[in-house]
């Protein structure tokens, strides 16, 4: 079955040894990235959920406004057509780490425009986009940091959410505000 050709055995052994070394090296490099808790595509540390969360921990939330009403303190997952864990990190990068107000404003404007014009369904770890209550679409968003306490949190109602702190606010300039 292996069909080995005795005459070429030495050459084959060397190439096979190189391939085995390369494979072991790749897996070893991945394990090293796990040890260092670092990712560098395509090397992956598989460090998902690797921290012990405290009972109370912060969460980003968004309130979306449209003329038909407001949807209060929604998860941010439905703001971008990306896996939920990427969305959280990108929001933190844009609204917490970055200090440039123009970048924040521009980003928020584009997020709302896509929600209004190009909604997307859920797939895999991408959550479905938040949908406006009326046909006019969203005209504003408020981004908050809230605290979630596992001892009193009810996931069926997504409440209570403690200590909401407003991080950023955006309103579309072309829509008159009430």
């Amino acid at each position, binding site marked *: 079955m292996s069909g080995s050709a005795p005459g070429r055995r030495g050459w084959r052994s060397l190439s*096979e040894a190189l391939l085995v070394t390369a494979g072991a090296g790749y897996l070893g490099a991945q394990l090293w990235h796990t040890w260092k808790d670092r990712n560098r595509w395509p090397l992956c540390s598989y460090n998902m*959920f690797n921290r*012990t969360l405290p009972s109370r921990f912060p969460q980003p939330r968004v309130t979306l406004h449209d003329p038909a009403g407001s949807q209060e303190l929604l998860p941010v997952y439905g703001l971008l*057509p990306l896996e939920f864990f990427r969305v959280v990190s990108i929001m933190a990068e844009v609204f917490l780490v*970055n200090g440039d107000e123009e970048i924040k404003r521009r980003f928020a404007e584009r997020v709302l425009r*896509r929600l209004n014009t190009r909604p997307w369904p859920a797939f895999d770890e991408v959550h479905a986009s938040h949908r406006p209550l009326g046909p006019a679409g969203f005209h504003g968003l408020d981004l908050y940091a809230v605290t979630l306490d596992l001892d009193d949190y009810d996931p069926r109602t997504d409440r209570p959410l403690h200590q909401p702190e407003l991080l950023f606010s955006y309103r579309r300039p072309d829509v008159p505000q009430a």
Partner: protein
Amino acid sequence: MFRRLDQFLFHQPDPRRQAAAIRMNLVAVISLTVAKLPPGDFFEEHRDTVAALAGDEQRRMLTAKEYETLRATTVASLAAWGATGRRAAGLTAAAQFARLSQHVTTLHPKLWSYNSHLNVFLAVLGALDTSSDLALGRRAGRPSDPRLQSLAIAFMQLYVGMLYFQSAVSKLKYGGVSWLSTGRTLRAATALTGTGLGHRLYERKELFRYISIATVALEVLFLPLLLVGKPDRRLVALAAAGFHIGAAATTKIPFWHLWTLYPTLFWLPERRERGRRAA
């Protein structure tokens, strides 16, 4: 022990047939992954934000048109590879899919890319000629040495085993014993991304300790059990697939692009052996 390792690496049962089956499996999984990637205009509209945050205004990113063209041609190459098993098609598809995946990660390069195993598997298997089975124009092909096909299969199996092992190491090193003893991380994940069933289980705080311990136990044991071969690898992979299906039923974290490869990666060889004995 050396003999067992040699058997595992170079003498997987019926490697040509299995490599061809994995090829078809990969084509299906990667095609769906590519079809479900975010649209090209999404990346384009945030291009300047990405560049500004990275402090690299000259950063070269694909335009929406280039990205969509690449997406379409990647699926075409995958289809050609699936149909023929030829190396040129496999390596072309691997290069295209790598560029696409790399483009997606530019939005946040430090984040783990949870499906890069697909890039690695496609590159490894695509570098071989698997045209001896399940392929059109088989006579024109020059199938790779079965020992190399076996080695590729073994590498992919070991990759899966190492993936679970890495997950366990990461939890134990950075979460510590409290990760297991409190069960809070998995409970919080169920709270935030849970399904209806997950939300009902959320009430049972104690349960998450046991789930956490069982999770790490599976992740630690998968690799050694795979190498030892006892219990049967099929059972070990079945347990892992069951773990993912359980996770998908309780949270919105299906990890489908990994365990949907198990039918050809772990369960096929013995079936073929049985079929041959019966013939």
